[in-house]
């Protein structure tokens, strides 16, 4: 299969949907000739014109809010927020308006809005440009929350998000933008709410998403090659809705669960996953505690070495796997 980057996959998804449906359009800061802060929409304005690829003033509340209003009245806006950290400015519009409109109005509104927001550290941009706040949105009924980890998923899930009649927050992974992967040439979508098992295994379930997936896959391969340990790597892909069944049945099989995400561990979405498992059919099958490896409990620091250590590393994830495998009752 041809390989394209994660950013290209996202651009393809938007362009294909815009070609098929005049109601779909893209707006945000510098999405036009600049191509967005990360070049994701580069060139789109040439094809679709500045009416459908709209540059906006720096007004995140109005960016999201006008997306909500346009969505409620018949358009299917894709809104780009340059860094997910700036969702903080538009939270009322997203959480109090967009997410709740349908329910508050007794079903008499639909809000087919996609909010694209790149997240994560690793770019040397420090505390205000590097957060992973996806857990916040997973807490909000009315939203869907996608965190794609491969180009293929990014494209297929974004197409589903654009066709979805609900507001979807689509967390793109900055550090994956330039990573290539196989992406089918012909039309496809990937449903929101279906996990993907990237690697089968019977020894431990490694549940992860976003930019931690490649790291976890490396470790799983390494442990298999070196020690014959078979780690099952499961990516929920969307954290709301969450494909509880797939996670639970994996852990029921392996008896051990490690959850890895870049976001700060405390209050992060790993807690939700752990809680789901700890109150599931898998509980009696647990052979070890449910462990999380997430970001340290600090803002993202600037200095490159610190920035690397603040999130899960090869070492910290690998050690956690081995510790859980060694864990015994009564030890």
């Amino acid at each position, binding site marked *: 299969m041809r390989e394209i980057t994660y950013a290209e996959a996202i651009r393809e998804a938007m362009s294909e949907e815009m070609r098929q449906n005049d109601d779909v359009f893209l707006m945000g800061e510098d999405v036009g000739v600049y191509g967005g802060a990360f070049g994701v929409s580069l060139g789109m304005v040439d094809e679709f014109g500045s009416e459908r690829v709209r540059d906006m003033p720096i007004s995140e509340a*109005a960016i999201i809010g006008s*997306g909500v209003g346009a969505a409620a009245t018949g358009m299917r806006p894709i809104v780009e927020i340059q860094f997910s950290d700036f969702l903080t400015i538009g939270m009322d519009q997203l959480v109090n308006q967009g997410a709740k409109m349908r329910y508050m109005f007794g079903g008499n509104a639909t809000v087919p809005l996609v909010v694209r927001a790149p997240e994560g550290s690793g770019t040397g941009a420090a505390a205000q440009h590097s957060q992973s706040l996806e857990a916040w949105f997973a807490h909000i009924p009315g939203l869907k929350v996608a965190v794609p980890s491969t180009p293929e998923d990014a494209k297929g899930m974004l197409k589903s998000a654009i066709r979805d009649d609900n507001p979807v927050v689509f967390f793109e992974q900055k550090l994956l933008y330039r990573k290539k992967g196989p992406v089918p040439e012909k039309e496809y979508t990937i449903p929101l709410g279906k996990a993907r098992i990237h690697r089968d295994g019977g020894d431990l379930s490694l549940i992860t998403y976003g930019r931690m997936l490649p790291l976890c896959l490396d470790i799983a391969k390494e442990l298999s090659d070196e020690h014959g340990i078979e780690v099952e790597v499961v990516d929920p892909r969307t954290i709301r809705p969450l494909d509880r069944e797939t996670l639970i049945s994996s852990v029921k099989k392996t008896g051990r669960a490690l959850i890895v995400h870049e976001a700060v561990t405390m209050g992060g979405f790993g807690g939700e996953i752990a809680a789901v498992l700890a109150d599931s059919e898998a509980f009696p099958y647990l052979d070890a505690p449910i462990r999380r490896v997430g970001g340290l409990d600090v803002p993202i620091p600037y200095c490159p070495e610190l920035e690397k250590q603040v999130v899960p590393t090869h070492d910290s994830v690998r050690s956690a796997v081995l510790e859980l495998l060694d864990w015994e009752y009564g030890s």
Partner: protein
Amino acid sequence: MADKKKQHKNEELGREKLEDMLRKMQLIRSFEEKVAWFFSRGMVHGTTHLYIGEEATAVGATAALRDDDYITSTHRGHGHCIGKGIELNRMMAEFLGKSDGYCKGKGGSMHIADVRSGNLGANGVVGGGIPIAVGAGLTSKMKKQDRVVLCFFGDGANNQGSFHESLNLASVWKLPVVFLLENNTYAMSLNVAKSTAVSDLTERARAYSMDAHQMDGNNVMEVYHTVREAVEQARENGPVFLVSHTYRIMGHSKSDANRYRTREEIEAWKAKDPIPRFEQYLIEEHDFSREDVDAVGENARNAIEEAVAYAEQSPFPSIESIEEDVYA
């Protein structure tokens, strides 16, 4: 523009339209009195924000719209709803949290909406509806629908960041939105003079190169003509800013001891009640008799009683419905 304005001013409104405007003002008044009555008897839970005394603004403004135009409204939204022509039965049912309400009982007083008829909803967040109005205006423009959005908000809301961002965006994109600031003198307890660092509120529009007009918000004809003008301008050329000067007669919400204002001030504004004023105008200028206008009031009160009867017989939503309608 001056000419056009004059033309609208002189435009004769037919008797039917005038009567409809009075009817709507009376409906709002009666609706609100009923709401107050329900609260005073503890028959309804939650809180509500009464529009009594401000009826001329909602009615004059919405009377200037085409049926397919949009409105966005506020926490003090009953008047806007009725102006826009909502069904009273289903509105009252929503107020009482019943399953036949516009929102199936899930929205209540602060969230009555009817998106299909262009009412994009009351809003519990001060300033929350303004960006939504801009988005609706964007739809209208992109789909070449020629629909205008009338965006209501208060003097308190005009200090929210969302106000600024929205007016700027609407102006940059020349969207068909009329921003209507209802200056009822207070935001809860705060006098507009203490919340807003400019005395002439129309000055705010200059920051967005937007035309602005003010109007006596207790004079329904003045509101009608001013908004009419603005709506047509917005339809053709982009956003307009309006300030309607009026007054909130009742407390801010059900729990307001009125510690921040004087009884005299309230009384002075009561004397400017827009309903008798409009009645007087109809009698003096339009061949209405006292009986005619009284009948309108009477009919309105009856309509509200009917709405109450309808709403009271409507069942509460079932517990099963609690998880419905979160997602499409």
